[in-house]
């Protein structure tokens, strides 16, 4: 799974609608995304689906730098690649994000 797919950019609101380091769910085309604003301002969009076999959401995790600690099982996930960090493994589908004039765009 990678983020390489050419889709369409959708406007997902302005930057201020996302609290720093507190995730928020964005729904685009029946797709649930967990969107995070890191403390350096970078915005990440992940499929809001926990890679753990028991599933669950991701949006409520703890954000540290560009890592996410998932809210249910405490797995550490690299938000730049979606890769679950050892000793666990798995990958979350990430979606490209761009910010223009304070507007957040997510590519699906």
């Amino acid at each position: 799974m990678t983020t390489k797919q050419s889709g369409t950019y959708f406007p997902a609101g302005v930057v201020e609608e996302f609290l720093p380091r507190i995730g928020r769910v964005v729904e685009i085309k029946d797709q649930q995304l967990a969107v995070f604003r890191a403390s350096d301002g970078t915005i990440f969009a992940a499929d809001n689906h926990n890679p753990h076999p028991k599933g669950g959401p991701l949006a409520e995790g703890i954000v540290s730098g560009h890592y996410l600690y998932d809210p249910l099982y405490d797995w550490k996930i690299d938000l730049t690649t979606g890769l679950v960090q050892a000793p666990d493994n798995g990958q979350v589908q990430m979606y490209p994000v761009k910010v223009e004039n304070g507007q957040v765009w997510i590519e699906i």
Partner: protein
Amino acid sequence: MNGKKEKLVIIGNGMAGISTVEQILKLTTRFDITVFGTEPYPNYNRIMLSYVLEGSKTLDDIVLNDLHWYQDYGITLHTGTTVTRIDSDTHEVVTEDGTRFPYDKIIIATGSNSFILPVPGHDKEGVVGFRDIADCNVMLEAAKQYKRAAVIGGGLLGLEAAKGLVQLGMEVTVVHLMQDLMERQLDPQASAMLKAELERQGIRFKMGAQTSELLGGERVEGIRFADDTVLNVDFVVMAVGIKPNTAVARESGMEVNRGIVVDDYMQTSLENVYSVGECTEHRGVCYGLVAPLFEQGMILAKHICGVETAPYEGSVVSTKLKISGVDVFSTGEFIDSPEHTVISHKDDWKRTYKKILLRDNKMVGAVLFGDITDSAELQKLIKQQTEMTEELYGSLMGTGCGGHKKTTSVETMPEDEIVCGCNGVTKGTIVDVITNQGLTTVDEIKACTGATRSCGGCKPVVEQILQYVLGDSFSSGAKQGICGCTSMGRDEIVAEIREKGLQTTKEVMNVLGWSQPEGCSKCRPAINYYLGMIAPDTHEDEKESRFVNERMNANIQKDGTYTVVPRMYGGVTTPADLKRIADVSVKYDVKAVKVTGGQRLDLIGVKKEDLTKVWAELDMPSGYAYAKSLRTVKTCVGSQFCRFGTQDSMAMGARIERKFERLDLPAKFKYAVNGCPRNCAEACTKDIGIVGNDGGWEIFIGGNGGIKARLADSLCKVKTDEELIELCGAIMQYYRETGNYLERTSEWVERMGLEHIRSVVVDNLEERKALMQRIEFALEHVEEPWQKAIRNEEGQSKMFHGIEVSARP
């Protein structure tokens, strides 16, 4: 390989036999394994019996392989069954009741027994060895009934037994034949320091005393010594040595000296019969310590599985005393003789002693007292007979101009060398989990391999291996910090926050040099708590550093919905409130309504975006079912309605709950209040349990019914309601100030000690008042979180509501 498996029989279910089995299981599945053990337990860690006696561990804690483990590997275990003989003609083992089991191969691992001095009276009641759980139980029982104990034998085991008995409240005299304690492991200098330290801890000594007779009727009443003096005691522990348990070997006609004679591959004189551990004699040596048995077991496992292995050539043994607060270590040769070059440093003020012995400039032995941080390093250097150099000298003895980097010899350590002697974990295994499973901290390695799980003595070496394998990517996480982001412990961090006036988690992490600048899911919530505890008036709570449940003020379920629990003070509600709860539940279509274990109602399955509406319509305070805070006060009916009740437990429960709700604590916190000693609200499993009686209340603390059950300890009795509230406040505040984040009171009470807590909150009236003032101050700054969220509309939508994007880009 159906039905074609070779039958491997292990005689002895102790550490040696089972660790060999563990090694074999790693190499092959070709054996059908049957284990016979005389004791009625699964495999447990015998070297930790001292901790059980001392009270810091329970029997369950020291089980190494539980019954599931045997099942999982298809091993047949016969506990409480002694094998008496091997019939090599028919290839069968014979048990005490005459049953026969066929074998292809046998491993004898029967360990050793306590050596009981054959003096007159040695068979009296009240005389035991110190070898197994049964002995341990006898000692625990004796301590309840009797006062005066003697331990015969001032060696390792004897001293550990003595300390345990002192801890259990007995008056203990150690009787030792020699003038020096632990003379087989320590030199006279270290021995004298040890004796002084133990005397400080309450152990008495009678040195140079030869026991000639045990006096008394059926039960022992005293010891007579060779000089005709008498020591009056009602309990005697014999810890004068061990004797290899060779009964089965003798019965089977095998070659036995002191122990069962084996060659360098643990082969006995009988074909297909091997022996390992304390029951064996290898090159004339019987070992009585744990490390050699792992080394033997590993070679035997390889040999038996047909894997090529180097022969066993004997072990360099080292000793560590397992008594809290007394650090003693020795390894290799420790008594100096003219052929040795001796490097030593004794410091009477710091009460430390360090001695290293060289022969032909090679390190051959060492003794440490007081500070044993170098023990792992020295053990390794001595095992390899390392040549002493200027640099090594500098790093070991701490002289010269400093700045020497400690040399890492883990690089040259062979792969199959055992790093963790307690659990038999090799360097190879550790390197493997670091490289193949990506582990980066000692804690992860501990969870995965068991290394450092028991005594912890090997932790420095595990750290060095980690450092060596990871190279530059090694972070100081391996040290004992509160998490992988820092090497600092809880107390250090709290002290730094107070001293430097740090205000935010970010400041703490920047100033104290966190390896991950924004911390992790372990340290961020902890630091947020410590900051709030230290400065309740000025600290701004960081929602982003809270675990989801606390951030959302509801409990997340695995499907992403939430559980809402309104307060019901003291477990009491009203018909009107019940009706409202029912109406809201229907309106928001909750999936289940459940009565909790703490006398409240769970509304399970509320959608995140409905949370604030549900709270608003309930119009009740949050029950904090998600929080590290006061959760619930369980009550019985009490004097209002119960015919036995002497105190109004419902009213007191509600009063306590209203008084202390909402305050952040290190971990969740539960109360129970009972109207009479029938204890219907189960005070014994609560953080604070209160039992009413005719003249007042009795307070219990540190109970837990959860993951690790613990019965609460009685702290004190009080006469008035006001005193009760004051003590509750003082206990909670003292716990807030000294507890580690996520540490339940059950662990806290054990760590701090009940006596200590009592001395602070009960005996010291001034301190109690001061604690009460500090908790009152903190309580002034708490706020109802549901109401707060409802009022904050903007934050509410960002926190609780998603964003829907139209399908058109």
